[in-house]
């Protein structure tokens, strides 16, 4: 009987300690579920340290920016009346791809995380500005909101490196 109880406790402990690096890290971010789903879905997630997890999120920002730029391109034809706002969004999202992401990757890899923080924060800023340019009638809302959410999670993780 005692043996049963001991084995039970050990099993529970084993399961609990599998609350992994990912889960422990994600608990300290503003969106646990989003954080876990982004990191779990990446094969590098299970063996990454905090820097590695931050870099995975920067990669997600990059992917999301690329996807959003593709959508912006299709919208030029579908919604030509939105050209001005689309131009500004294009500029903003190109900044994410060409400035924010490379800056964050270099800074996090080289151990000067504050510049990485700048980059991931800015990704959220650019997305919000793009969204605002449509004066409430944005065709990109779900993409820009996603970017802001991912930016918030990434930023929380980069902060842990400081």
């Amino acid at each position, binding site marked *: 009987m005692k043996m049963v109880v001991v084995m*039970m406790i050990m099993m*529970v402990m084993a399961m609990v300690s599998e609350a992994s690096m990912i889960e422990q890290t994600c608990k*300290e971010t*503003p969106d646990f579920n989003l954080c876990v789903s982004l990191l779990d879905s990446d094969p590098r997630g299970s063996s990454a340290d905090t820097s590695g997890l931050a870099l995975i999120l920067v990669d997600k920002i990059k992917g999301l920016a690329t996807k959003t730029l593709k959508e912006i391109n299709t919208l030029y034809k579908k919604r030509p009346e939105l050209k001005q706002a689309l131009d500004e969004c294009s500029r903003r999202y190109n900044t994410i791809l060409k*400035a924010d992401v490379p800056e964050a990757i270099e800074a996090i*890899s*080289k*151990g000067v995380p504050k510049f990485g923080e*700048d980059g991931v924060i800015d990704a959220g800023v650019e997305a919000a*500005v793009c969204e605002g340019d449509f004066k409430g009638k944005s065709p990109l809302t779900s993409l820009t909101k996603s970017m802001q959410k991912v930016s918030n999670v990434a930023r929380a993780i980069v902060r842990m490196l400081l």
Partner: protein
Amino acid sequence: MARSESLLPVTSQHDPLSESSSNSIPETRRRKPTKVHLVVYSGFLLIALYITLIVTHTRPVSTKGANDEKTVASRARLAGVSEKSNEHIWKMSDDREGEAFAWNNTMLSWQRTAFHFQPEKNWMNDPDGPLFYKGWYHFFYQYNPNAAVWGDIVWGHAVSKDLIHWLHLPFAMVPDQWYDANGVWTGSATFLDDGSIVMLYTGSTDKFVQVQNLAYPEDPNDPLLLKWTKFSGNPVLEPPPGIGDKDFRDPTTAWKTSDGKWRITIGSKINRTGISLVYDTVDFKTYEKHDILLHQVPNTGMWECVDFYPVSKTKHHGLDTSVNGPDVRHIVKASMDDTRIDHYAIGTYYDSNGTWVPDNPSIDVGISTGLRYDYGKFYASKTFYDQHKGRRILWGWIGESDSEAADVQKGWSSLQAIPRTVVLDTKTKKNLIQWPVKEIESLRLRSKKFHKKIGPGTVVPVDVGPADQIDIEAEFKLKNEDLEVIFGDDSVEDDKDFSCETSGGATLRGALGPFGFSVLADQSLSEQTLVYFYVTKGKDSKLKTFFCTDTSKSTMANDVVKPVYGSFVPVLKGEKLTMRILVDHSIVEGFGQGGRTCITSRVYPTKAIYGATKLFLFNNATDATVTASFKVWQMNSAFIHPFSAVDDLVVPSST
């Protein structure tokens, strides 16, 4: 998961042992206990699984660490003061949501400064190795040759005769060795006894380890110090045991110890404690590490760009870094990675064991309520001893407060502050005093003098012509009668907890403030940056003065950070309130009470640009009438440009 097969045999094995009276139990009854155990076991297993599921997948209760937004407690005595989050956290202004805004090139090109150091394009950050040699001031800096954001860092280089008129030179050092392949980072210069220069700098190696490297001028006879040689035995220092590979950077200028060795300090961290490591050397090639730190302060995080230097207790000139003695205090300064704030403290240095102790541990280096060089945007600062004029000079990196898209569009990012002299405040003895180097006055063109008395709640235009490149020196007086009335009036509360940052800005009206200048303003004041004093009635009827800068309405743009900055400023008996403001397009440098409290801000107006930029004087106090005597100079450009043969026509006088 279930390992029931392995448990059952154990269970059945235990039966005989745990049930001492079981030996005589017939077989049928033995089977029953096994079944019971199976049921009990399954029950426990289900409970355990359930608990585990809850524990590992519970949404966290706290969301700390993600969002440092501080909500402003409204202390308005006047209706209509809006609550705004105020820190360096960007937030889309509520009233601007839905308003489309785009930067155009007219607005962006206005932002370039006329007389602050900046490269022709791209990103800059930390000042490096400043020095004076053979007639030229040298300035090196962290630079990205490829983009308007941080990355691919090299050492930029420029020279000047007067710390104001800079001439760009080719890069001094680039990442061409394995030990700096990933970045030629921040460093400092030391003059040896024979007048030669050694430079220590941090390299990020090909494996991303932070190491210290030695370099020196290739040709000491070249006053322009164009080329630098890296020591073949680099790196000279690697991260010691117990220090992270990425927590070891920014070596200081060395100072002489009493036994004739050179000593340097390098910032780092151990867990959350900011520390400063100490090394001794005779040749800058091999080092002895001290076991004891120069200093450490818990909960301050990584210390970047540590600086350590003596200041005179009695004299107003600078001291060489090696000076020591009874007339001297020592300053320890560090840049806090966590908060992007440069903090310093005054204390005593013990040369025998290389330690330093602050005068006031409650405002130790890195403590949030401790002293800062500058209460605005100002980081990675570094001093050097100017042996040419006997001054200690401070450089500070001023980053942008706008979006990176704007930086990319305009093609550049970051400025340096105007170099400042640094001395101990011999009157208060508790803080440093900084002041823009006197050479900046050579940029002053025509001036206008004013003397204006303004009652409570007034704004008056100040006609100076163009108002985006100006130097203002001002003196303010409050009427004695007003002060007496206010002190006598018990219904006027003490401002116990005033702070510029939480006040919400200059719309918060007190009996004795705010009053000051509205710079980079448009005619309708839809955009304005306010630099002002806020005098409070403190306890024991003592006046307490604050010096603030409010950028919350500095621009209609919605992608810019617009904080309210500032701090308490000591005002001694008999002193008038004085302020100096340098306005240079997208940068405003404010100096309160002769440089006791300094505030640098970055400002990005969309309308108050070019000919539309105006200057106003304001008094938003409820009770006090203020008399302002001030002078405003138009400032010339410093015409910073690449060095050419023409710039070298006059042979520099040797030093």
